[in-house]
């Protein structure tokens, strides 16, 4: 056996794994997440698209009806029926809910100081975000109650009211949004508080030397540094507004006469509630909601991508 005696000059024979470790490892780690995401998120999205082309009561055979569900939605929109109301309320939610961002910012600025017990104050302001949305809904329902709610008691002292916020089709959506703003403001506040910790004191100092103070200081020096926090606050608020469901369900059940519905709630009502038997129609509403969300999601992804390229 002469060959055995020869020194082994060739490159050591590495296994497939050793050669490709660098490329494969990240994918292996990602695999479980990708698998679950594909199966529980991507796949159902396409399933919903598909279902929206059928008429199905969830029990019997599904019947293919093409785009008729969307046609019905269109007519509901034209007739200013439930779908129109839901879409309109969704837009009101989107706009009004954004108030949580400036409100959260100002509370954060107010709390961003060193006073004895500031931690307690901070946690008290953060409190509404910790309690469940169901509790928030109940508390506000009692707050608005036309017979014994504290709102009407206080209005009575100054000779006003009584008003039935949740029983009036013009005020009900705003009443619910106000309840939603309470925890959402707390959420934005926390985001800004952490953001304020990262504000560079040297830049503040430099601004001071240049004579900036008050609003100019806030607008030109502090806010630009809070941009990441603002971005996240914007994302969570938009998404929070679009998935508003629990408060509506608890406070009004979509009423009075359907005037506080939003798309998410309407979809639930049509497809899954006690009187709901129209899975296909519900799916069509979900697709519309998805399309609206997609606009925002694309914008968020695009701006994140742009940030990273910088």
């Amino acid at each position, binding site marked *: 056996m002469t060959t055995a005696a020869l020194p082994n000059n060739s490159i050591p024979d590495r296994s497939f794994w050793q050669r490709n470790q660098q490329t494969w490892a990240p994918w292996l780690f990602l695999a479980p997440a990708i698998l679950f995401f594909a199966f529980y998120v991507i796949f159902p999205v396409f399933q919903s698209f598909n279902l929206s082309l059928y008429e199905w*009561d*969830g*029990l*019997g055979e599904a019947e293919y009806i093409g785009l008729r569900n969307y046609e*019905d939605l269109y007519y509901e929109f034209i*007739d200013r*029926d439930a779908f129109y109301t839901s879409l309109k309320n969704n837009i009101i939610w989107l706009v009004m809910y954004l108030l949580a961002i400036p409100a959260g910012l100002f509370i954060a600025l107010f709390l961003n100081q060193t006073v004895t017990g500031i931690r307690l104050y901070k946690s008290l302001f953060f409190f509404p975000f910790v309690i469940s949305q169901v509790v928030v809904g109940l508390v506000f329902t009692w707050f*608005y*109650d*036309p*017979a014994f709610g504290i709102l009407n008691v206080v209005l009575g002292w100054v000779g006003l009211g009584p008003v*039935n916020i*949740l*029983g009036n089709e013009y005020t009900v959506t705003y009443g619910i949004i106000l309840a939603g703003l309470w925890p959402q403001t707390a959420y934005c506040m926390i985001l800004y508080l952490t953001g304020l910790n990262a504000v560079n004191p040297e830049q503040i100092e430099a601004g001071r030397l240049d004579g900036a103070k008050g609003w100019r200081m806030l607008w030109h020096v502090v806010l630009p540094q809070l941009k990441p926090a603002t971005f996240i606050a914007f994302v969570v608020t938009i998404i929070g507004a679009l998935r508003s469901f629990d408060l509506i369900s608890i406070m*009004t*059940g979509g*009423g*009075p*006469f*359907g005037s506080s519905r939003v798309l998410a709630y309407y979809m639930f*009502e049509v497809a*899954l*509630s*006690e*009187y*709901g*038997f*129209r899975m296909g129609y519900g799916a069509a509403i979900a697709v519309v909601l998805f399309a609206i969300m997609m606009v925002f999601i694309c914008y968020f992804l695009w701006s994140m991508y742009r940030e990273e390229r910088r």
Partner: protein
Amino acid sequence: MTSLKSTLLAALAGSTMLAGAAFADGHALSGDLKIFLDTSNPAPRAAMEASIARFGEQHPDLNIETTVIDREAYKTQIRNFLTADAPDVATWYAANRMRPYVEAGLFEDVSDLWQEPEIAENLASTKGAMTIDGKQWGVPYTYYQWGVYYREDIFKELGLSEPTNWEEEKANCAKIVASGRACYTIGTKFLWTAGGWFDYLNMRTNGFDFHMQLLQGDASWESEEVRATFANWRELIDMGGFLENHQTYSWQEALPFMVNGEAAAYLMGNFAVAPLREAGLSDDQIDFYQFPAINPDVELAEDAPTDTFHIPANAANKDAARAFLRHVVSAEEQTIINAGDALGQLPVNAQSSVDDDEFLNQGFEMLSSNSPGGVAQFFDRDAPAEMAKVAMEGFQEFMVKPDNLDRILSKLERARGRIYE
């Protein structure tokens, strides 16, 4: 050995049974029996569990497994468990409410049970409500009357008597409103309470047959008849007869107004009696009257919602399930579970006795002798679910904004065109 023992035991149990119907076929029941109940309130729950326990004593070899599901959650869960993991017996509601499951083939045809003299003779009054396409799909186990529950003491104070026609009704209401109260408390947040009002006003104005035609999609919502019903409704609304802000309250939240004397009466099912009593009203303070006649030419008809037991088509132990159905409708069992301290409702078996309760007696009397027009289930059980939802929303809107009537009716008419096809 064990099989001999079980047969012996079963024979023994069978011989001691009074009704004896459960053992018509003579062989012992064994295996598992899964029962799903929606009777989640404490008293009904205890009543049903006790009834199941009595059934279990008669069939010691049967392993009975009872699951009680929250009444509201049950309404959505039933669609899953009937298809996926079916129990052997499940509760539900009669009439149109069971149609989706019957049409999807998820309920077992139990017409054979209805052929048995024990059931055919004694349950005849509810047979119609259990029949779809000429077959029976379950058995009823309880029902209850609807009507006007009122504060007897307030009526006495104002010198009023129970109205029997629409003129008396309006005269009463005018006096109640003048005393600073609402005639009727109502909470329409969850819509169905308004459906009860429509049921009665429409049945009294146009009669039972027209009401059923309308609910089954065979009559127009924009017809003169329906407009007449709403015109009558409007008379009460315009005089301030209904509790203000009712759209923000559930039916339970509307109760305190009656308890506190801010409203004089409540159009409700008999289940309202228990919370009124618990709130401290004595039987001297509450009384009951049948909804007064409006149009003298139509016969009186009533709402009496019926709760039912069904065998899912995918059930595993259908023999035992049938035996349980026989057990639960038997005269003796009906007397026990519908007693005042149990369900507190009316027995479906003609041979059972009604518990000695002021309201049950009046209800039984009314339904058995003073409802010649017919007995309806309830708005959201007689109409298809989708139509019920749209219509009840319209009723709520009408009660708040009666001027929107034309728009509401044209919306309902459009919904009719789409839903019944």
